[in-house]
């Protein structure tokens, strides 16, 4: 079976650091920043395990603020 590779882009200024995407991701791809914050002072979601992402969109679906864009490509 072809493996799916995914990637996410987080709109960090829209992100409020609610962490629901981190919880929703079955593979631990995302985490909240621990040192950086956005202009509103929120820690924001960032990809920490890029290679693991399958582009399942769970993080984006649960994001209340529509911050996450997801791309997915079949591995050749």
């Amino acid at each position, binding site marked *: 079976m072809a493996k799916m*590779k*995914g*990637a996410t*882009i987080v*709109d960090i*200024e*829209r992100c*409020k*650091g*609610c*962490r*629901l995407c981190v*919880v*929703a991701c079955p593979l631990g791809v995302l985490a909240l920043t621990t040192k950086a914050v956005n202009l509103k002072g*929120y820690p924001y979601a960032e990809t920490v395990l*890029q290679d693991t992402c399958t*582009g399942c*969109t*769970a993080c*984006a*679906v*649960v*994001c*209340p*603020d*529509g*911050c*996450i*864009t*997801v*791309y*997915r*490509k079949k*591995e*050749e």
Partner: protein
Amino acid sequence: MTTEEIIRPENLVYRKPELLNDVPMHYCPGCSHGMVHKLVAEVIAEMGMTEKTIAISPVGCAVFAYKYIDVDWQEAAHGRAPALASAVKRLWPDRLVFTYQGDGDLACIGTGETIHAINRGENIAIIFINNAIYGMTGGQMAPTTLLGMKTATCPYGRDVHLHGYPLKITEIAALLDGSCYVTRQAVHTVAAILKAKKAIRKAFDYSMQGRGASLVEIVSTCSTSWKMTPEKANRWMEENMFPFYPLGDLKDSKP
């Protein structure tokens, strides 16, 4: 495969709905309103009704819904949204007309408007966000606050002798002959969100088919007023809200 090779337009699988405006929403982190706004925006676009939607926003946290979903909106007085929607739909029968209301707005001050609009069988859809608390005014007791639940106006917990019982208005709506579709959903997991979206789509479709009134309750969290993290609020909702407000369809009148 590099990330650059994946992030290409042809590989796009999820993005913020087009009808959700770029302006950041004022809701607190993790607020269920955001999820439901996204679903409503997606459904309107998927139905091709962007140019034919007249939406009614409430008084409460969602008062500014009109800033976030890119359609025509009327902002109603507290609780009166179903009255506005009744008139608008009768005057513009080919438009998609829905209200978006919280528990205080719909189940307390607007109980009369809600019950009668549904009972008349108005061809409207009502999206009902039930987080069992008044969010915008700072966490006071709502008609749907659970027994024992602490709020700013029942700081020792809702006591039935003092405050009466939580109101299951969705169950009441299902009893009314004018309702065609009454359902209770949630948006705490991917699966729940997909089901909630189907429910909203069905309610909107039924309203356009002239079948009567639909009520889609979304059992929601208010992490700020509940004084929990969004994650914990979701767990608390599953453990405490769902037993009293069980998810699922209460009524679906097939044609």
